[in-house]
C-alpha cells in the first residue's frame, strides 16, 4: 500500500462529501425563502440515506463480481472489502465512491424544487440509488462494466453522474409537473450570496472529485487539478461573455452557473486531456449551457434550477468532447479525434452517453410514476403555497 496515494484518496473522499452541502447552498439560494430548508434538507438527507444504502448493497452492485451489467452481493454490508486492497485500501475506495453515490441523486433536487413531498423524495432516491446509480456506476467505473470494456472513457462521471442525474431530473419533472404559478408569477432566487457560497464549496470539493479519481497522488491527479481549475474558469468566462452580449449584464448567478457548467463538462475529461483542451471544454460548456437554458422554456418543463441545462447538457458536452480531446500522452492509451485516434472514441462516447441517458430516463420514469400513483410525489396545493419549510418540516428558515 502507498501511504501518499491513500492519504490523497481519503482527503478526496472528504472533499467530495463537502460538495453535497455545497450543492445544498447552491440550490438553496435559488429557491424562494419559504422553500430553502426543504432544499437544504433534501440534500443533507441524501448524505444520510445513500451512505447507508451504499454500504448495505450499492457498492457491491457497482463493484462486486465480474458481470458486465450488474454486480453481486460479495461486498454487501462491506464484507470482503479487504480483498480490494492494493495501492490503496479497499475501504478508501469504498469511502470515495460513497460520496459520488451521495451527490448524484442530490443533483436531481434542483429540478423538482418547491413541490416534491419529502417522504416521496426519500423513497425516490433510495430506490434510484439501487436501481439506477449503482448499475450505471458499474457500467462506467468498473473495469468489468460493459461501457468501460467497450472503451468509452469517463474519468470522474460525466455520463455516470451528470448525464445520469440530468436525465433523471427530466423524468421526474415530467411526472411531478410544473410549480404552481410557473411562468405567471416571478420566482427569483431569494439569496444569491448562498448560491455563491455553495458554488465556492462545490468548486473546492470538485478538486477531490476529479483529481481523486486518479486514485493516486501522481501526475494524473495533478493534471486533473489543473484541468478542473482551467475548465471552471473558462466556463465562467464563456457563460458571462454570452450572457453579457445577449442580456446586457454579467450576473453573479451567471458566474456561478458558468463555473459549474465548466466543472461538469471537465468531469469525464479531467485525467485524459491536457494543454489547452480543458479551457476549450470549459468555454464550450459555459456558452453551451447558457444556450441550453432555452430548452425548458420551449418545452414548458419546469426544471426549476436548470439541472438539464447545466448537468445534462454539460455532461453531454464533456462526454462527447472527450472523444475529440483525449490525449494518450496525458494518460491511458486512447486518443480522441483531434489527437490522431480517429472517430472510434467519439463513437464510444456517444454510445455511453445515449445508453446511460436511455436507461436512467426509463427506470427513473418508472420509479416516479409508481411513487406518484401510490403515495404521491407532490405536495398538496396548500402545502406548496405555504412552502416546504413549514409544510414538510414544521420549521422556518428566517424568524420574523
Amino acid at each position, binding site marked *: 500500500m502507498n501511504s501518499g496515494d491513500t492519504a490523497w484518496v481519503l482527503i478526496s473522499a472528504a472533499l467530495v462529501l463537502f460538495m453535497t452541502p455545497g450543492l445544498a447552498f447552491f440550490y438553496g439560494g435559488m429557491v424562494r425563502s419559504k422553500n430553502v430548508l426543504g432544499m437544504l434538507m433534501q440534500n443533507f438527507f441524501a448524505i444520510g440515506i445513500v451512505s447507508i444504502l451504499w454500504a448495505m448493497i450499492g457498492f457491491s452492485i457497482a463493484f462486486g463480481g465480474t458481470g458486465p451489467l450488474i454486480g453481486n452481493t460479495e461486498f454487501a454490508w462491506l464484507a470482503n472489502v479487504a480483498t480490494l486492497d492494493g495501492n490503496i485500501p479497499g475501504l478508501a475506495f469504498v469511502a470515495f465512491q460513497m460520496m459520488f453515490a451521495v451527490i448524484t441523486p442530490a443533483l436531481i433536487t434542483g429540478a423538482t424544487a418547491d413541490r416534491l413531498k419529502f417522504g416521496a423524495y426519500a423513497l425516490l432516491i433510495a430506490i434510484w440509488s439501487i436501481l439506477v446509480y449503482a448499475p450505471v456506476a458499474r457500467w462506467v467505473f468498473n473495469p468489468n462494466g460493459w461501457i468501460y470494456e467497450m472503451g468509452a472513457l469517463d474519468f470522474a462521471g460525466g455520463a455516470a453522474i451528470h448525464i445520469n442525474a440530468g436525465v433523471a431530473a427530466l423524468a421526474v419533472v415530467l411526472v411531478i409537473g410544473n410549480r404552481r404559478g410557473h411562468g405567471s408569477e*416571478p420566482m427569483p432566487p431569494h439569496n444569491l450570496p448562498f448560491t455563491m457560497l455553495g458554488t465556492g464549496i462545490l468548486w473546492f470539493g470538485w478538486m477531490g472529485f476529479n483529481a481523486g479519481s486518479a486514485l493516486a497522488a501522481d501526475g494524473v491527479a495533478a493534471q486533473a487539478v489543473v484541468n478542473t481549475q482551467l475548465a471552471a474558469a473558462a466556463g465562467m468566462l464563456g457563460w458571462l461573455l454570452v450572457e453579457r452580449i*445577449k442580456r446586457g449584464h454579467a450576473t453573479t448567478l451567471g458566474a456561478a452557473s458558468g463555473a459549474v457548467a465548466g466543472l461538469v463538462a471537465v468531469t469525464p475529461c479531467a485525467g485524459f486531456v491536457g494543454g489547452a483542451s480543458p479551457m476549450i471544454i470549459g468555454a464550450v460548456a459555459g456558452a453551451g449551457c447558457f444556450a441550453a437554458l432555452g430548452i425548458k422554456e420551449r418545452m414548458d418543463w419546469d426544471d426549476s434550477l436548470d439541472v438539464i441545462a447545466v448537468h445534462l447538457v454539460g455532461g453531454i458536452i464533456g462526454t462527447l468532447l472527450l472523444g475529440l480531446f483525449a490525449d494518450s500522452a496525458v494518460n491511458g492509451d486512447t486518443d480522441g479525434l483531434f489527437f490522431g485516434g480517429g472517430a472510434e472514441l467519439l463513437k464510444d462516447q456517444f454510445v455511453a452517453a445515449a445508453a446511460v441517458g436511455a436507461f436512467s430516463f426509463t427506470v427513473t420514469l418508472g420509479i416516479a410514476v409508481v411513487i406518484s400513483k401510490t403515495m404521491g410525489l407532490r405536495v398538496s396545493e396548500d402545502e406548496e403555497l405555504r412552502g416546504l419549510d413549514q409544510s414538510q418540516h414544521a420549521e422556518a428558515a428566517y424568524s420574523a
Partner: protein
Amino acid sequence: MKLVTAVVKPFKLDDVKDALKAIGVAGITVTEVRGFGRQGGHTETYRGAEYKIDFVPKVSLSVVIADDAVDSVVDTIVSSAATGKIGDGKIWVTDVERLVRIRTGEEGADAI
C-alpha cells in the same frame, strides 16, 4: 398633536434623521417598506429570465410632534430627503387623538 409620516428613499434616511435632530425632534420610528408609484420598478435577470420588479424599497418614518412644529418638520424632511429625481417619496400629516409615554404614563404634549 400631529403624526407626520414620510416615505423616502432609503439612502436619504440618515440625512433626514440628522436634519430632524438638528431642529430638536426627539425621536422617530422607522420601517422598511416597499411600494410602487410613478418611479416604477426595475428589471432583474436570473439565468436569462427577466423579472419585472414593481415594488421599490423605501423607508417610512413616523414622528409625533406638537401642532406648531408641523411646518418646520415637514419643510426639514422635504429639504433633506429631496434629490430632485422621480421617486423621492411623500409626506402626509394626520391628527393624533391621544399620546401616552409608557414608562411614566405622561399624556399629550408631555409625552412627545
